[in-house]
């Protein structure tokens, strides 16, 4: 069986901002099992989003190894990394990041343009993904015509439409009210439990983190600890 887990080995990442070099991740070693739902917590600047970007292949480490679902990302060229991302990773962002000039359906169907699926198959998949997140009746709406919760659900539909191995969510409930946030969190839980997706969610919200199975805590670019949540026991 293919390993769908995530391994970070001695990962270091520095940024230079306004002439000052900041070490965001400092020799980080972390193993996250496949098919699990992880919440990533830590104070601002602890390296959460950087870690997420490295796992998603949006950025590269200065040193160390990032292996996702058995693929060592360091060995991939820029173009190959794009291809890999398209087939293996689904992103959910805090600001939704939907393309404003496309409808909900078109946004969700967009990643499928990179697959060899027929037009009919793409349509069916996008409709299914929207149905899964409860937006069947909003397919023709543009992002600005949707509420915040609907936009985020649309973004989740886009993240799962290619059936990726890993879903990476960066503060997915950060811009939502509590009720809407709960709906989104419930949706992520279902994706993990029903579709066995490996989910890594960055959050500041302890309530949101509790919906995951495990919480990874970072501080100053280093791993503080990994703990099981009550949700893990419940499942």
């Amino acid at each position, binding site marked *: 069986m293919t390993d769908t887990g995530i391994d970070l080995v001695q990962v270091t990442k520095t940024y230079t901002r306004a002439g000052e070099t900041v070490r965001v991740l400092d020799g980080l070693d972390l193993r996250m099992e496949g098919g699990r739902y992880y919440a990533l917590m830590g104070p601002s600047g602890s390296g959460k989003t950087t870690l997420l970007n490295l796992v998603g292949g949006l950025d590269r480490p200065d040193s160390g190894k990032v292996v996702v679902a058995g693929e060592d990302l360091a060995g991939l060229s820029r173009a190959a990394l794009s291809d890999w991302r398209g087939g293996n990773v689904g992103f959910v962002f805090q600001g939704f*990041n939907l393309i404003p000039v496309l409808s909900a359906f078109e946004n969700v169907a967009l990643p499928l343009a990179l697959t060899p699926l027929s037009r009919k198959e793409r349509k069916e998949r996008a409709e299914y993904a929207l149905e899964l997140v409860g937006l069947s009746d909003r397919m023709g709406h543009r992002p600005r015509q949707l509420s915040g919760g609907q936009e985020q659900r649309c973004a989740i539909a886009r993240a799962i439409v290619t059936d990726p191995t890993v879903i990476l969510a960066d503060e997915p409930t950060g811009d939502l009210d509590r009720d809407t946030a709960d709906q989104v969190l419930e949706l992520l839980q279902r994706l993990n439990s029903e579709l066995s997706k490996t989910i890594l969610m960055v959050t500041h919200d302890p309530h949101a983190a509790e919906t995951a199975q495990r919480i990874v805590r970072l501080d100053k670019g280093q791993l503080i600890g990994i703990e099981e949540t009550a949700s893990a026991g419940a499942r």
Partner: protein
Amino acid sequence: MELLRLAWRGLTRRKLRTVLTVASLAVAFFLMLTLRSLVTTLNAGAEAASASRLIVQSAVSLFVDLPLSYQSKIETVDGVAGVSKWQWFGGYYREESNRFAQFAVDPAITLDIYPEMELEAGAREAFLGNRRGALIGEGLAKSYGFQVGDTVPILPELFPHPDGAGVAWEFEVAGIYRPTKESFDANMLLFHWDYFEETVAAGQNGEAPGTGTYVLEIEPGSDATEVMAGVDALFENGPQRVQATSESEFQRQFVTMFGNVPFFVSTIGGGVFLAILLAVVNTMLMAGREQTRDVGILKALGFSDGDAVKILVGQSLFISVLGAGLGFVLARATEPGLASALGAMFPGYAIRPETMVGAGILALLIAIAAGIAPAWRAARLQTVDALGGDE
């Protein structure tokens, strides 16, 4: 297909700006096509000039008349097959705005010298046999509705009618010529020299006029340079020195008489075009910058750097080709009107195929020039930076 949709939708993000940019380009291409066509029309006149015709004018200026006695002397030069007087009449038809070229000529020899004027059966005889008869181009006939047999009153500005100031010279349309060459002026009125001379001589001062130019036809096989040298040499010691030139050289000199028209037109047109081009490049840069986040999203979803380039260059291509296309349609739509309005100065005005091809190539170059900077930026953009950037 999806990239095409993305490119198109990106343009609809700011609909008004897209429309205005396309409109700017349409105006620029309309100007380019029209002004370029004016230049090519002027040049075509010189290029299409007959190699067998020479023009003799005063060495001082085209505005200085030559004595009538010169005609018989020029006819004696070796290689000269025929000579006709051509005198600019300079009048207008009813309104001052109705201007076209009128010339007093030796009718028979002129018809022999100018095979480009095609006449219907009987028109030649009708023209030659009618002292007040005039031959008009089909462009004039079309513009003013003149028909054979009509009387055309021309109000003079240089040669007053002997019956008094403000009295029109009257000509009877004896025939309508059809140019066999596109560049040959279809808006001339030619009339009998004899009628002109007698009428002028009957005026208050009673002086016979001179002629502005002589048009020569040279015999087949004759060396035009030798004939020109022979004509010039005849009058080297006066009373009026002359300058004999080829018809094409005369056309070129005539075109530049009021300044270097092609240079002037090309410079003004080029300046306007460049200004609009810079505006389009600026617009494309702004559009590219606005789509930074979209590019980041696409890259995060797995689209390549090349896909981002295709989208932005595609948008630039669409705007340029649409703008150029509309400019082309506009230029073609106004072509008959301009050809008619400018017929006297730019006979045979037409947008030539090479001008259209040039405009097409220019549209592609603009698309590349305007699209390459935002596309290059999009290709180099790091996904993380693009997603973090504001619109």
